[in-house]
């Protein structure tokens, strides 16, 4: 049986540490490439938009790098896409932080977490699937690692795959076809996070088999 490693463009727009997400992609059988090259978006099997930082500055850098138009084109065409944290938030329209517009591919807007909780949320929290899909049946739960101050609201409920609760309910996984976004960091969420990355990489691999997840298990004693 042949396996292949789908080529994933990890967009480098000054959004901080990209190594962790690249390592997670490599660990589940993908071939990640850090790039800021607009043509790489169309050429890759899938695109990852990582994100730590501010929405306003990040959109400005995406624009300067000439990445907005190819990203919109890829997203409209349904190319496999994974937005992580800020990368998920940028799928939406108006962003409170920086009073700027995101990519606007999904309907909804992004605002700060409400009062009464420590902001940013830093740490593990529960993620509950609210629809049946490639990540599992509705009602399934796993834990994930969050670092964020903003959430999506006014979203299309058809795009919501999973919810979490931090002072209030918010979308923690959204998807429209192979265009996915996670409010948490799957690359820091242990085995459950790697499973999510692997499932998404499988979409980018057009059904061909992937090498098994082994990297995490290697150093674990029997």
């Amino acid at each position: 049986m042949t396996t292949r490693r789908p080529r994933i463009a990890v967009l480098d727009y000054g959004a901080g540490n990209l190594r962790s997400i690249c390592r997670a992609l490599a660990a589940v059988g993908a071939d990640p490439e850090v790039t800021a090259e607009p043509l790489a978006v169309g050429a890759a099997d899938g695109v990852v938009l990582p994100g730590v930082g501010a929405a306003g500055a990040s959109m400005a850098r995406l624009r300067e790098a000439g990445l907005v138009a190819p990203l919109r084109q890829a997203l409209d065409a349904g190319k496999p896409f994974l937005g992580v944290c800020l990368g998920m938030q940028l799928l939406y329209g108006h962003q409170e932080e920086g009073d700027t517009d995101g990519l606007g591919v999904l309907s909804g807007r992004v605002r700060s977490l409400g009062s009464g909780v420590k902001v940013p949320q830093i740490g593990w929290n529960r993620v509950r699937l609210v629809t049946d899909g490639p990540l599992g049946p509705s009602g399934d739960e796993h834990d994930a690692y969050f670092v964020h101050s903003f959430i999506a609201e006014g979203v299309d409920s058809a795009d919501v795959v999973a919810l979490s609760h931090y002072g209030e309910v918010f979308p923690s996984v959204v998807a429209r076809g192979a265009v996915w976004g996670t409010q948490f960091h799957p690359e820091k969420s242990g085995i459950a996070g790697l499973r999510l990355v692997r499932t998404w990489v499988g979409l980018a691999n057009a059904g061909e088999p992937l090498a098994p997840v082994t990297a995490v298990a290697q150093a674990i004693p029997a």
Partner: protein
Amino acid sequence: MSATVADLASLAPDLEDAGYRRVIPCLDVTNGRVVKGIEFVDLRDAGDPVGLAAFYDAEGADELVFLDITASSDSRRTMVESVERTADQVFIPLTVGGGIRSVADMRELLQAGADKVSVNTAALANPVLIDEGAHVFGRQCIVVAIDARRRPDGSGWSVFTHGGRRDTGIDVVRWAVEAARRGAGEILLTSMDRDGTKDGYDLPLLESVAGAVGIPVIASGGAGTLDHFAEALAPGRADAVLAASIFHFGQYRVEEAKRAMAAQGVSVRMAQR
């Protein structure tokens, strides 16, 4: 169709904030080797930080701390390599501390794969380091470690530096408040009085600091029994517990500690849910 928060909540009416308290094993590392590495499990190399990190990940540790206990520049170079190798295989948050003196030191470790850096002595000598680190990397990256010792006259706690050898005379609560104001994301609070005693965490110290800052406090120093974790994590005290020898020497396993904590009503994440 635009869904309101109430619409989303109706999809999962019983969903609540997990409110997890964290359990964080701390590995003392020098020149790329773990000091006091665990020997009760069948690891090929008990002194290899990568294998230990993977072991604790599998056990359900929520985060890991690597502490460079020599903190020489040679040692930090090997620490960068250890962090790189660990981050290739372990996909939970990693904090690195020991000998970090500048934003450049922070950047080197964060680029190697650390998620947070912990500063102690250098932040006291140059508090602006906290502001700079938070500005460049975000406050979620910056942990301020405080070594506290109770004052003989009972007037609170003093901040000690240089591995607990030097009394700065600075009040611990006042320094914690200043660190938080300058941009610390968390306080790692070690009781020098309790460290190594197995008598339990210094609960009045935890209450004094947690009551004064709005950021998470990680309790360190004194864990000897499983009850000590739940005590430290009671409301108004710590958000996380750090422990070294209680896990390294196999007295308790992380998963066992978490089961005991859950039985006492502490919300904890169980391994690989």
